[in-house]
């Protein structure tokens, strides 16, 4: 019989319970899908690393003979060492004028269990005899290549054809970026090719030397110790950099992604389940209070505490189970498209999703746990009720003056309905706090998402439209004399301005902090690369010191005036300690750099007037000509066309907008559910009062205004509180997102607050209209028949 009562009660308040279930479902969807994707990624990462023997350390050198590299094997702590030649080459696809690059990575086909081994997906293994390559599967698919097809590349200024005999992938390029300033892999224009060293060396003038070394460590060996032992051995061969696995780009970004997923999978569901629990708690508590007469009678009949409690808990149970099942199943379903999405970015085997009973069970348990806990908290009042006491009406609500009434001006401005509302708020503090938190949550989530939207746009477009304003950037394979190249480029048809740039890898040190970055030397009067401060004012590259980015300043614990130790393999006398003073800190969202005037930098390095790349302003029509001209040049490593980059970026931003949209939707739904539920609860709790007002002849709209006044009043303050809240969220977000590739700005734009305000207000308004419908259905006669 009680079962029937429950069904009727649930039906009566179906909107409110439905909203609760929806919130649970959203939370669990995030939990299941994110956890599953994370598990999938982690599992395939681990097995891929293990199976393909992923390196623990990476070394870049100028040139080192293989025989010398082999000797490194004997260094204590090193398990295995492998030398390679790694070079980026341009690909000539017929009928395509954009830049396509392949990174040639040499391998030794004879080696057993090689480091960073290539997992062959299709085709046959490499042989030393032929111009054959294995190509990475993303590039293969994106460019519609076929096995045994030949592709043309420019190596050392000469056109060469390489035959694709197989398709494969390596743990080194799970997330394949060409330069560290790229944000996403772009398999159409950048891929990896694995080629036998014996073949590759014939393509380049270096002949018998290698420029890249990978190594694995013995179990228990300490990376830093090994590094120190390696350094002196490598110095004679032009050591450029040496870094551990954790700094390897692909690994770093995959790890970051995993961390982000993990954080989301933990925090968001917790948040949503807490909100749902809160709603459930309030609803059940109210129901128990309202039905105390019924409870008293049941007790008087001889129902035990347990039986009555389990009746009320069955509401929580039903909701918990329903929410758990629906959320779990939808989450698992969602993990499939999610995994597919990750497949497009992360190139790993075994990255598939399958139905997971474990997560379904976990979802149900989580949902049940929260619902039952909240339900019990709401219902436990039953236990202390004595039957006789229960049948007596609860102590009447006591009218009281509030502190707000002391502010006479404010108080006199209010209508009587307003006064009622204000007193209600203080009468029902926990409810008011709940509404407050709910609106604050909605507002700050919306503020956060819109800010992220604004900021990511700024991050990218500022960089391309305000900072790097050149049309084309020509990068050199090796530093060359600035004047000579400038002169040559200046004579090229269509070129109206040429500016040199020096990109120098340096290690900056301050106290115990240290960071490897690229120091950019920029001409003093540059118009093609504008360093901007917070207010978008142009800052000249300093002659007497360094400008560093905010994030770099933080990482180095440095501020204006700090003297940084600068080490670089490009300094003439690398062993001599050199210092540069920080003369300014600027925001930088893409990349992590230090800046200096190019002439002063050249002086500092003491290697003459070297430049590593050139920025050009030129006619659009001549760009193709320039690319054709320099495509074959061995001296040029890349020609970047700014419009092409901008277009690519815009395309990639689309997926980001999807995420923003989902977050915003979550915010709106939550806000809606909270307002709707609290309206409905208030309605049923105060049905007597509200019906009395209608008897007096107030219209449903006037009656509703008592409730809405309360919510708007709380809402205004909640939204105000949401402003710092979204700032905090954004800072947290920025800290978890930012890395050496991009830094998320943390200044929220006024327009996002405006949008957050309007959207929050709209969802409050709509929720109130829905609740208002219930007022119209209120039967005056029935309500007033009984005593309050």
């Amino acid at each position, binding site marked *: 019989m009680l079962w029937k009562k429950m069904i009727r009660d649930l039906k009566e308040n179906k909107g409110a319970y439905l909203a609760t279930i929806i919130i649970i479902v959203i939370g669990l969807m995030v939990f299941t899908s994110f956890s599953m994707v994370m598990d999938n990624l982690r599992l395939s990462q681990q097995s891929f690393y293990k199976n393909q023997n992923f390196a623990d350390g990476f070394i870049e050198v100028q040139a080192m003979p293989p025989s010398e590299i082999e000797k490194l094997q004997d260094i204590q702590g090193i398990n295995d060492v492998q030398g390679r030649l790694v070079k980026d080459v341009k690909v000539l696809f017929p009928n395509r004028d954009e830049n396509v690059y392949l990174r040639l990575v040499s391998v030794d086909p004879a080696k057993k269990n090689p480091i960073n081994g290539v997992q062959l997906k299709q085709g046959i293994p490499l042989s030393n005899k032929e111009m054959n390559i294995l190509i990475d599967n993303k590039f293969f698919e994106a460019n519609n290549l076929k096995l045994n097809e030949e592709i043309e590349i420019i190596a050392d200024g000469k056109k060469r054809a390489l035959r694709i005999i197989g398709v494969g992938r390596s743990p080194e390029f799970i997330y394949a970026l060409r330069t560290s300033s790229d944000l996403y892999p772009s398999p159409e224009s950048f891929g990896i090719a694995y080629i036998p060293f014996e073949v590759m060396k014939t393509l380049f003038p270096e002949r018998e030397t290698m420029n890249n070394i990978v190594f694995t460590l013995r179990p228990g060996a300490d990376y830093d110790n090994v590094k120190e032992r390696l350094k002196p051995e490598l110095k004679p061969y032009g050591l450029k950099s040496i870094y551990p696995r954790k700094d390897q780009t692909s690994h770093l970004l995959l790890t970051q992604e995993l961390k982000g997923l993990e954080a989301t999978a933990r925090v968001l569901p917790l948040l949503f389940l807490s909100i749902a629990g809160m709603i459930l708690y309030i609803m059940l508590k109210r129901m128990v209070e309202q039905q105390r007469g019924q409870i008293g009678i049941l007790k008087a009949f001889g129902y035990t505490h347990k039986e009555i409690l389990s009746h009320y808990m069955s509401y929580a149970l039903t909701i918990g189970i329903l929410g758990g099942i629906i959320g779990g199943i939808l989450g698992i379903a969602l993990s499939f498209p999610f995994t597919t999405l990750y497949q497009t970015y992360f190139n790993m085997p075994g990255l598939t999703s399958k139905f997971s009973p474990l997560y379904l069970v976990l979802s149900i348990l989580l949902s049940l746990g929260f619902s039952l806990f909240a339900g019990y908290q709401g219902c436990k009042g039953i236990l202390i009720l004595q039957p006789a006491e229960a049948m007596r009406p609860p102590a009447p609500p006591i*009218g009281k003056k509030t502190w707000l009434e002391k502010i006479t001006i404010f108080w006199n401005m209010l209508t009587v309905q307003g006064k009622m509302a204000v*007193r209600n708020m203080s009468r029902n503090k926990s409810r008011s706090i709940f509404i407050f938190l709910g609106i604050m949550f909605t507002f700050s989530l919306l503020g956060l998402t819109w800010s992220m939207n604004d900021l990511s746009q700024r991050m990218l477009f500022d960089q391309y439209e305000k900072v790097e304003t050149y049309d084309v950037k020509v990068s050199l394979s090796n530093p060359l004399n600035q004047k000579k190249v400038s002169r040559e480029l200046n004579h090229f048809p269509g070129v109206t301005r040429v500016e040199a740039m020096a990109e120098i890898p340096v290690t900056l040190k301050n106290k115990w902090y240290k960071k490897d970055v690229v120091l950019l030397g920029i001409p003093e009067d540059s118009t093609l690369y504008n360093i901007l401060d917070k207010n978008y004012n142009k800052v000249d590259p300093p002659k007497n010191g360094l400008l560093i980015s905010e994030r770099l300043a933080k990482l180095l614990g440095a501020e204006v005036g700090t003297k940084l130790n600068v080490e670089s393999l490009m300094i003439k006398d690398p062993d001599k300690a050199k210092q540069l003073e920080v003369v300014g800190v600027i925001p930088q969202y893409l990349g992590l750099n230090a800046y200096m005037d190019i002439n002063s930098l050249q002086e500092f390095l003491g290697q003459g007037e070297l430049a590593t790349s050139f920025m050009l302003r030129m006619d659009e029509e001549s760009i193709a000509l320039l690319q054709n001209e320099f495509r074959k040049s061995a001296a040029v490593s890349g020609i970047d066309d700014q419009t092409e980059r901008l277009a690519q970026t815009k395309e990639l931003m689309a997926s980001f907008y999807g995420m923003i949209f989902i977050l915003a939707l979550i915010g709106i739904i939550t806000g809606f559910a909270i307002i709707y539920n609290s309206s409905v609860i208030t309605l049923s709790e105060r049905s007597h009062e509200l019906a009395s007002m209608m008897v007096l002849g107030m219209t449903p709209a006037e009656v509703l205004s008592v409730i809405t006044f309360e919510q708007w009043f709380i809402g205004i303050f909640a939204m105000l509180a949401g402003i710092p809240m979204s700032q905090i969220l954004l800072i947290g977000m920025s800290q978890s997102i930012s890395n050496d590739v991009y830094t998320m700005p943390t200044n929220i734009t006024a327009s996002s607050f405006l949008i957050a305000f309007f959207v929050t207000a709209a969802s409050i308004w709509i929720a109130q209209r829905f609740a208002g419908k219930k007022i119209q259905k209120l039967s*005056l006669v029935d309500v007033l028949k009984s005593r309050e």
Partner: protein
Amino acid sequence: MQPIITAKNLWKTYQMGEVTVVALKDIHLKLYEGELVVILGPSGSGKSTLLNIIGGMDKASNGELYYRDTPLHKADDKQLTFYRRNDVGFVFQFYNLMPNLTAYENVYLSAQISQSPLPVEEMLEKVGLSDRANHFPSQLSGGQQQRVALARALAKNPAILLCDEPTGALDFQASIQVLKLFKDFSETYRKTVAIITHNAAIAQIANRVFYLKDGMLDKVERNENPLPPERVTW
């Protein structure tokens, strides 16, 4: 004289699954300006139903009902709200005051929506609660609360005052006080007052007494010499 309320062939039925409950059966009646009527009848005879329909809180299933010339049986929710707002005052057994408004504010709440309200202070004075204006309902006795409820109904300056067992929860003294106010209101302001009661003694103060039985108007008695409330005893 034109009646304030005219009911013709009024029916109210409730459909409870297969059973039809007849709450009111073929009611004909007229209420006039300045008269005080009492409605008597056993429990379940339809008194509240009749009063609720007259007051625009409920609708008849059948028949005609007029407020002066306005056909209430044809009115929609909005028109009924307007009717309640300007022309009807209600007093219930359970006072139904807003718990978090003071006595003054409760009366004011009602007055502010009426087209021709009476001064709030005056109404509180009339019910003898001027000194309690700033008290909340929980700080007042039952009789005092009922008088606030009455002041609230009167402040709208309604043409008809409808009272459903207004003295049901009050002791003798408090009841007499409230009845005096009803009488006074009907006489000095020439308003119509209808009172439902289980207490037959109260019928002595009425100009007319309606007896309801099984949803039908059993008989109507005219009282040529109504007793002043202070002389009623029970």
